[in-house]
Structures are given as C-alpha cells and as structure tokens.
C-alpha cells in the first residue's frame, strides 16, 4: 500500500468559510436569499398591482367596483375592443407571412439563408416604435407614398397594424423556425417511399409537425401587440388601445386604481399565452424521439426560386422600412430639404437631456446585463444543481418563470405602485437608475433563466456529487467548472439583457426620474413634441448600439472564445 496513504487528515492552515458555515447551511441560505430577491423584484410589485385594482384612490378596499366602472365607461371599454381587434388582425397577417419565410429558411435550398435570417431579425434590435416612425415618413401627412392609402390615414388602426406586423415578424419567425427545424427526416422518406404527393406531405406531416409552433406564435404575437406601448403611442392618433390607456390613466390623470385595472386586463392575454406556450412545449418535446434523423431539404428548383423571391421581397421590405427611418434621421427637413445633415443627432435641440439619455440607457443596459446575468445564472444554478431545500428551489423557479406571463407595461405599473408607495422603505430608489436596472432584470428574467437552465441541464449531473466526495465545496466547483463550461450561454444571456434593456420602452416609461431618463423614453418625448427626425436619430443610435453589441458578441465567440475553450476540441 505504498502508493495510497489512507486516512490522512487535511492540514489545518487557516480558517476557511467552510469552518464558519456548513456547506448545507450555505446552500440553504443562498436559495432563501434568491427566493427573497425574486419576491421583492417580481412577486411584491405584482401583488401591489393586484391589490391596487381592488382599492379606491385612498387605498380603501372596494371589491370589483373599479372593474365595474371600467366596463361601464364606453371610452375605456372601446380601447379593449380596439386592442383585441388590432392584435387579432396583426396576428392573422404576421403568422402566415412568417410561416412561409420560416419554411423557406428551414425547408428549402434557397441561397442566402443567413442573410435573410439576419434581415428578418433586424426589428429585434430597435425599439418597437421605430417601425412606426418609419411609417410616418412613408405614409404620414408628408409621406411620399401616402397616396397608396387612398385617402385613409396612417394615424390609427392601419398604421398600428402595419407597424406591429413589422415589429412582431422576427418574434413569430424565431418560434416558427424552431418548430420547422424540428422534423424527423425519416417521416419524409417514408412518405416519399409510399409515393405521396408534396401537397399531401405538407398537409399530413409538415403542418401537424409545426402546429404547436404556429399556436405558440399566434399567442406570442397577440400578446406582444396588445401590450405594446410604443407603436400606438407614436402612430395611434385618436385610436385608443389598452396600453396607451394605462399610460394616460397613470401618468396623465394620476388615476392609479384605473391604471391598475387596465394592467390586470393586459395581464389576461399574456397569462393565457404563457399557459398555452408551456402546454405546447411539453408536447413539442415529446414529438421528436432521440432517434429521429434531422430533415435535410433536397433542391427543388421551382420551390426554391419561389421562396427566394418571397424572402427577398419580405426581407427587403423590413430592411427598407427600418432603413427609411435611418435615412430620414440624416435629412435636414423632410420632405422639403432632402440634403443630409447631422443636426438631428444634436439631441439637445429637441430634448433637454440631449445625449444624456443615451448614456443613461448605456449605463442601465450595462448594469442590467452585468448584474442580471450574474443573478440569473447563479440563481439557475442554485435551483437546478443543488439538492437541498426543494421547497425553496421550487418556489424560486416559479417566481423566475412568472415574468414571462407579465407584459412590461404591467410590470412597470406594479413597480410604480410598489416602489412609489409611502409605506415602502425601498421607495428611496424610485426614479433612480437602481429601480430601472432592477425592473429590467425582472422584466427579462424568464428567457434568461430558461437559457441558463438549459445550459446547466446539458452538463453532467454528477459534478456536485463528485465535488462532495472530494470534499470540495459546491461554490468552488461552480467557479472552476460550471461557469467556464457555461460561458457561451452566460454571454448569450448578457447580450440578451443588454439589447432588451436598450430597446425597452413599456416597463420603464413609468419609472424614470429627472436624472435618469432613458433614450427610448426620450424618443417618445421627442415624438410627442413633434421633432420626429430627432426621434428617428435616437432610435437609430440605439439600434446601431444593439447591433454593435450583437456583432461584438459573435466576433468574441468566434475569435477569443474558441481559443480559450481549447478543451472543447477533440
């Protein structure tokens, strides 16, 4: 037994954390802390919103009276119908459009797929209202194509629907591409062996396979439209919808209970969409066995050409619309003086905060990305990998999934009511950068949490067991092994947080203070005061920054990361 000395005691050198705190106590404490943080940033604001909708202006409980007033006030109730109509119409237009586009990207051999994919994703990198600003230039009172509307006005439902279709297109596309990419090639081979016609293959294999994706896309788009604030604000004119009502009730009339009621109504489609999405995802997973062979499309000239023309048409429409706003932001005085200028980028001319709001946005996005990524990933690790305190982990997981069902505007309302409440000691943060950062992290928590959880599920489940057997505390293995392995996912989360923090309008519109106005809010204000070119310029700056962050991410992944992660190579 010369090789292995049995039972040697570790030398006692210095007091470590281990000696002060048992590993299990530390784990329990961390999980409890995570749950507490999520309660404060997610559960309590929502609870405040909920209770506010059942109170009068002085905080007395009035039951469903606010709801009764809401539904018996014609102007308010009309907004609900308007929202539903606009959302239904946008959904009916965007889902088929995105489906054919996604079909081209996944099921054909058309060239330039990467380019078309990137073109379609463009709206994700801009605030939603940028598409509306572009439409003002194209179809507005001074628009060069306004004759196409045959006398109808772009201000109102037409403008909202067109802008929402553009804005929602990539969101629907991402879901449908995922749904169509998941296909068992053997089903198609079996159909071909049986001599099935392409139309029948499409009807009996392709559509049923993508059906859950289609349902999911419908709900997601419907919710996005109902809860979007930026587009109806810019192009809605006198056409009131739920999201603008909420803003008017809270910011304009200081009628908090009625704002809370509108918030609760906005919550309905989102919660429904969330429930359907969960249900659908469970089924989608069961659709593909681990032995499925991925489907690889074979060239078919006619089909590929048709899809190429379609994708080129839709893709260039998107790029042209967004490009329109960018171009307009450099124009001296639309439409009379088309010479190029940088004057519109001197934001101080249009808005008192000037470039300050942009730097506020940058700071906010950077903090949300940094702090949010650390919180989300550590939280997902605690929930996914530790075996202790199952009730606490389940509760934290539930809270982490909750923001998915809460539109930004509703969360923003909850934050107003919670962080502005006189009884709340945290109200010192109201109007500060802190509350904006916290709100943004909470708003985008779920997608980041799912990304982190997926990455964590892919790594060996026994690392924690191995560390325990080697008497290495879990936090050491977290730092030395788990984080380095998950670095790509961590970067994904950071970029996701950063881009969304830059572009979001709806949740932060209620929360900014005198010194913390964000660029996306400045755009709303510049549009309100009629300096549309400056608004387009600011939106362009944001879009350029978001795209820059994404490109930096891709380059970083390609150049630096692959070298650092030599261990991935065989």
């Amino acid at each position, binding site marked *: 037994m010369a090789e292995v000395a049995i039972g040697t005691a570790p030398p006692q050198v210095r007091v470590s954390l281990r000696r002060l705190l048992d590993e299990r106590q530390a784990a329990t404490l961390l999980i409890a802390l995570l749950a507490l943080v999520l309660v404060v940033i997610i559960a309590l604001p929502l609870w405040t919103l909920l209770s506010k909708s059942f109170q009068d202006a002085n905080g007395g409980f009035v039951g469903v009276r606010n709801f009764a007033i809401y539904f018996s006030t014609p102007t308010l109730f009309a907004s609900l119908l308007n929202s539903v109509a606009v959302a239904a119409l946008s959904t009916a237009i965007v889902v088929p459009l995105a489906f054919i586009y996604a079909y081209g990207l996944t099921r054909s051999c058309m060239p330039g797929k990467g380019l078309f994919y990137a073109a379609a994703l463009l709206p994700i990198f801009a605030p939603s209202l940028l598409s509306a600003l572009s439409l003002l230039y194209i179809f507005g009172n001074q628009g060069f194509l306004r004759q196409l509307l045959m006398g109808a006005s772009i201000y109102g439902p037409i403008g909202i629907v067109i802008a929402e279709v553009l804005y929602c297109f990539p969101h629907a596309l991402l879901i449908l591409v995922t749904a169509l990419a998941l296909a068992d090639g053997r089903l198609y081979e079996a159909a071909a062996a049986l001599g099935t016609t392409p139309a029948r293959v499409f009807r009996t294999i392709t559509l049923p396979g993508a059906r859950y994706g289609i349902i999911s896309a419908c709900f997601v788009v419907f919710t996005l439209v109902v809860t979007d604030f930026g587009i109806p604000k810019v192009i809605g004119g006198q056409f009131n919808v739920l999201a603008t009502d909420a803003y008017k009730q809270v910011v304009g009339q200081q009628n908090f209970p009625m704002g809370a009621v509108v918030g609760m109504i906005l919550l309905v489609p989102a919660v429904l969409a969330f429930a359907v999405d969960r249900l659908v995802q469970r089924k989608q997973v069961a659709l593909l066995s681990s032995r499925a062979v991925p489907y690889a499309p074979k060239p078919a000239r006619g089909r590929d050409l048709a899809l190429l023309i379609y994708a080129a048409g839709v893709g260039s429409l998107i790029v042209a619309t967004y490009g329109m706003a960018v171009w307009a932001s450099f124009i001296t005085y639309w439409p009379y003086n088309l010479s190029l200028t940088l004057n519109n980028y001197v934001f101080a001319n249009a808005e008192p905060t000037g470039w300050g709001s942009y730097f506020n946005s940058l700071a906010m996005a950077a903090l949300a990305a940094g702090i949010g990524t650390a919180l989300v990933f550590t939280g997902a690790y605690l929930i996914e990998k530790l075996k202790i305190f199952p009730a606490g982990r389940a509760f934290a997981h539930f809270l982490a999934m909750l923001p998915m069902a809460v539109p930004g505007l509703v969360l923003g309302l909850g934050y107003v009511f919670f962080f502005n409440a006189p009884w709340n000691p945290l109200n010192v943060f109201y109007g500060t950068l802190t509350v904006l950062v916290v709100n943004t992290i909470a708003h985008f928590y779920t997608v980041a949490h799912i990304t982190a959880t997926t990455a964590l599920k892919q790594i*060996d489940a026994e690392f924690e067991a191995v560390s325990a057997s*080697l008497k290495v505390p879990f936090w050491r293995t977290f730092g030395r092994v788990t984080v380095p392995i998950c670095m790509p996912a961590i970067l994904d989360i950071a970029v996701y947080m950063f881009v969304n923090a830059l572009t979001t309008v709806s949740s932060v519109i209620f929360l900014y203070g005198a010194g913390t106005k964000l660029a996306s809010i400045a755009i709303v204000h510049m549009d309100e005061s009629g300096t549309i070119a400056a608004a387009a310029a600011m939106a362009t700056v944001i879009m350029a920054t978001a795209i820059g962050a994404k490109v930096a991410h891709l380059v970083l992944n390609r150049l630096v990361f692959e070298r650092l992660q030599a261990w991935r190579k065989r």
Partner: protein
Amino acid sequence: MTEQPFLRIERLRKRFGAFTALKAIDLEVRRGEFVCFLGPSGCGKTTLLRAIAGLDPQDEGRIEIAGRDVSHAPPAERDFGIVFQSYALFPNLTVARNVGYGLVNRRKGAAEIKRRVDELLALVGLPEQHRKYPAQLSGGQQQRVALARALATAPNLLLLDEPLSALDAKVRVRLREEIRALQKRLGVTTVMVTHDQEEALAMADRIVVMNHGVIEQVGSPAEIYRSPATAFVADFVGTMSFLDATVAGPKRIRTGALDLVCNDDRGLDAGTAVKLGLRPEEIRVRDVKPSDPNAVTVQVGSLEFLGAFCRARLTPEVKTAGPLVADFSANLMRDLNVAEGQRLLIALPPEALRVFATAAQG
C-alpha cells in the same frame, strides 16, 4: 468473522413519492471487500449506493462507516471516492487538474500534489497524459482518470456506479480486470453497482442481488450461481429453464408426466407446487444409459448458433410443463452430429435440479 464490519447498513428505507425504492435493507461489508450490487434497473441498487454516499439520503435507517454513524452526515463528511457511468470528468480541466481536484482543497503544496497526481496516473496506467483534456481521451482512458481522481484523496471507501456500462465490450473486460487488481493491491473497501451479471461474477468477493427494493440474496459469486436462493436470482444470474412442477415425495419431483429425482427438495411437503430449475450447461448428453437417474428421451427443437456453443430447445417425449433449454458445445455438436428434429437420450443430474417455492417467484 468477529471483525467489526467496515460498512453497516440497518433497516434502510427510501421512497420516491408513491414508489418504494428501498424496503428495510440490512447489509454489512467487511474492510477490504469488493461487493457488487446486482439487479435489473429500478431494483434500488443505485439508490442504495447514493444513500451510502449521502447524495440521496435515506428516509429511515442507519448507515455506519468505519464504526461511525454517518446516517445524517453530508457527503463531504463521509470519506469516500466515487466513479460514475458518465465519468463526470470536468471537461475544462486537464487530466492532471482533474486528478488533483480534491487535493488542491486540502491545502497541499504544489510539488506534493504533482507527485501524488503522477503516482495515481501511473497507477491507473495513464502516465504522460497530464496535459490532455478529457475530450481528447477514449472512454476507457476517461474512466481511468475518473478512478484516479476518486482515489487521489485516499478514501477508505470506493463507490463505483456502473463504471463500465458506457464502454465497448473489449475495453470493459480489460478495465474490469484492472480495477479488480488495483482494488486488491490497495485493499480499499469497494462497492460497485452493476446490472451486468457477468461483471459481478468476475469482479466481486460477494454479490448482493437486489429486486424491487429488497435484497434477494447475498453470497460469493459461486454461491449465487450454483445455489440461487430464489427463482429471481436463478433467472437473473445466468440462464435457467423453469418448469412448473409439484413435490411428489421426499426428493421426488413431478413435472407433467415426468418423475424426477432431485438432491435438494428444500424440505417441502408432497403436493406443494414448485418451480423446477435447471441450468442449460448441466444437461448431460454423452454416454447416457436409459437406467441412469432422470434419463429422458427428447426431441431437438430449434437450434440457435451462438458461436462457441449452440442453444437447443429440447422437448421431452413424455409430456412435461414445457421444453428444456440446453447449451451444446461446438465439440458435442460435431461428435453427436446434433440436428433439429433429432431424438436424443439425455440425463438431468439430480444434483443440478433446483427447486423453488413458487411464492418466491418475484
């Protein structure tokens, strides 16, 4: 054995929701022993191993390691090394850092750690692989690294959770011989979980056969194979043909119209319904005389070619409860020129006939 057992398990119970994974398990493992937990999936063998490690604590019962009650101790306070089927090597750390992972935390000097890592890599037959990453090694090599990592901190108990199941057949056989040799050399008490009976027979000092959360039998490989306590053990370890039968009298068994003599009737009363078991290789074919005990004329049914031997289904000419399975060596096939449909006189040796009470059938 008057010596204190190294590992003692008493009345261990574990439930997962409505499913009972372990039902009052009692077990003792001696110091330096190599014990295999053997059973089909879902029998509770892995649950028992993880309870010993403290990874999935039991609901009730006591676990004692080296005389110390560790029933409620966290894994870090239990002194064991563990190797998993998935290897669970840290992919972003080199082989040397993986092996030294548990040493770094013990505040040893860099030189001491390096010496120890060298020693262990040499021990598992992987010298000169320090700088490689796990993904650059074969499955067998990765499992050796995992073994070295588990042994690095010199634990008194080594736990192996299906360590060979993910490997190719040839690598599996070689590595199992090496693990056994290493275990003997180090004298470290070892518990291995496996569903592969051949692996358990080849490696273990003692085998613990489990089914449905209970221990069916504990014994040396020879005991388990030759004298299975229950029909489940007999069926799970090796191959056995079973016939429904009744006890006809002392050491006499009747199946269908066939009367047989057996050496061990387990003291069952005449008329008791039993299962009669016989291993395929025990059936005698050469030089059988009609006067031999339990001589039976059979017809050869299907013949299944399995390389070194043929598996034959034999139907006795007298009515029985079913066919018998026999393994004929290539030699025998040639000498007797056995073919399907042929009549053969065979003998069922009384000492090879096993009688199982039907209630014990799991």
